[in-house]
């Protein structure tokens, strides 16, 4: 008799608690969701049981007319960082959108 093993991976958001279950994915794989407890930003789910925290990182510079992702608190955010207990981190960055000409993407 052959036993068929059916593996899966559980994912969870440490901030809002949303969870998901997938087939096993490569070690560096990520899954994202819009997190209501992280200002509505696109934030990663982490593998269930991971000792980490997921935090939003405010933009480190003035906007100077740039279109930057904004949280539901109105602040511009440049990244969401996953800080692991062993010291390594994961990063999802939010670049500005490139425009033509001046502020807002219009001509001139």
């Amino acid at each position, binding site marked *: 008799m052959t036993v068929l093993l059916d593996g899966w991976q559980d994912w969870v958001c440490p901030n809002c608690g949303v969870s998901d279950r997938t087939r096993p994915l*490569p*070690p*560096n794989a*990520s899954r*994202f969701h819009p997190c209501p407890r992280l200002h509505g930003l*696109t934030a*990663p789910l982490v593998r269930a049981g991971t000792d980490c925290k997921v935090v939003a990182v405010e*933009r*480190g*510079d003035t906007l*100077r*007319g*740039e*279109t*930057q*992702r904004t949280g539901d608190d109105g602040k*511009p955010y*440049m*990244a969401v960082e*996953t800080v*692991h207990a062993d*010291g*390594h*981190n*994961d*990063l*999802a*960055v*939010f*670049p*500005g*959108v*490139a*425009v*033509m000409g*001046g*502020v*807002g*993407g*219009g*001509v001139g």
Partner: protein
Amino acid sequence: MPWTDSSPTSRIFTQAILNPLTASVWSTTEPTTYGANGLSADTVNVALFNNSVSPDASAAVGSTGYNTGTWTTGNEVTDVTNWVAGGRALASKTYTVLTAGSQTTASGIAFDAADLAGGGNVTIIATFGCLVYDNTITAGTVAKQGLCFNYFGGTQSVTAGTFTIIWDATGVFKFTN
């Protein structure tokens, strides 16, 4: 002038707008090996850079390519295995109407792509932004011509982890009127 002093800090190169992006409006020869189907068929790469670059949307075309002008490999930020020199290619590219607009509201067109992640865990130290360039253009006035540059809003570093660029909801670059 580094990323941190530029304004605004994410821009389309003027020379990329002139050619190839709008070359078809005039009797302009497109860059050598630029695809007949434009960016949809070409390989568009994203390379990471430190704060020693001087991003200038008005730069001469010969200084807008990867490893030309300020965008030299000496200023590039890489991971030894999973985000190597030259960067990573965009997938699932689109070029569509962003906002239909009306007689009283603005409209827009955007070039967008799937979010971009390293090929595995990476160690990337102090990257401030990226150059988006056409890796299919191999000769002519400039090879690997830059299309735009995008600021990350400050310094970004990862140690032995995943690094993902999540493009703005309005695209990698956009035109509005």
